[in-house]
């Protein structure tokens, strides 16, 4: 029980990170013409802010369903890496617990749990309890913030230029990712290629640019390794 409480306590700062994004998704979703059920459907069934924003933007641009799904799922590929990283810790837990952990797995409880598990010895049950505690604050904060944003969204006046809330949010998320040369190279290629391929219909330019940028990031990383060797 104390591991659960530790998880609760450790995740409280994340509430202040998650809530503004949930709020913003509720607002932007309502602005894009979604009703309350649709906005909440995203936040309860998907629970992955960046991909929800991506899907919303491409939906507003009338992109085909398959392109929207491919792009939004590409944003979420990192969750498979989290799943792999957590397997040594949760692999011995019962299947129903792992199924629930998978539902709640987001950037914040992943980061919080990994740093806690590396810091001290814990049994599988304690680790599960810690993750459950962390999720008990983060999940309701995400749902509630989305709900508030969706209800308040229609009351937001045009001078607030909400059309630009999404680009600002993405730029603010990209900045901290530019830690290494390969990340910077991938980002530059992503921007240049998306502008060059902007004439392609239905957001397909985004997929082409993203694929090019991933290859460039991986190649620059390899080049760096060879040079260091």
């Amino acid at each position, binding site marked *: 029980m104390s591991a659960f409480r530790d998880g609760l306590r450790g995740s409280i700062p994340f509430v202040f990170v998650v809530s503004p994004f949930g709020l913003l998704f509720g607002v932007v979703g309502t602005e894009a013409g979604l009703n309350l059920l649709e906005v909440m459907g995203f936040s309860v069934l998907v629970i992955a802010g960046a991909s929800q924003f991506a899907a919303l933007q491409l939906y507003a641009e009338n992109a085909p369903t398959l392109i929207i799904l491919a792009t939004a799922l590409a944003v979420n590929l990192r969750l498979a890496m989290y799943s792999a990283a957590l397997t040594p810790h949760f692999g011995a837990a019962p299947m129903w617990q792992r199924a629930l952990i998978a539902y709640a797995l987001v950037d914040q409880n992943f980061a919080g749990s990994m740093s806690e598990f590396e810091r001290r010895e814990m049994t599988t049950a304690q680790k599960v309890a810690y993750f459950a505690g962390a999720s008990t604050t983060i999940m309701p904060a995400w749902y509630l913030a989305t709900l508030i944003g969706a209800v308040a969204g229609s009351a937001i006046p045009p001078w*607030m230029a909400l059309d630009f809330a999404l680009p600002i949010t993405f730029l603010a998320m990209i900045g901290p*990712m530019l830690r290494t040369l390969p990340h910077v190279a991938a980002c530059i290629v992503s*921007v240049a290629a*998306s502008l060059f391929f902007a004439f392609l219909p239905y957001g397909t330019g985004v997929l082409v640019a993203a694929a090019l940028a991933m290859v460039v990031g*991986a190649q620059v990383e390899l080049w760096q390794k060879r040079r260091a060797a």
Partner: protein
Amino acid sequence: MKLWIIIIGLGVGTYLLRLSFLAFAGGRQFPEWALRHLRYTAVAVLPALIAPGVLWPAATGGQPDPARLAAAAATIAVAVWTRNTLWAIGAGAAVLYATLALIG
């Protein structure tokens, strides 16, 4: 209808990504070449999603807009400098409203 296909499709797909290794791995790992590409997914997809809209905003009929360009520059500068997403959003919004108020 289309929207619910997207919501449910994205929900199921994302859940399977989260569940993948937790449920089925049995100690297996990604091959190194796959990891090397996966590391750059976020930084490859997110900039491509917004770059055209920053340069040619729909709200101004596709004309480059000084206020929006200034806000984008301020956001990325603060985000790189502080590594703090929320500070960067605040800076971007402040510059956007200030420049919109100044130059209309």
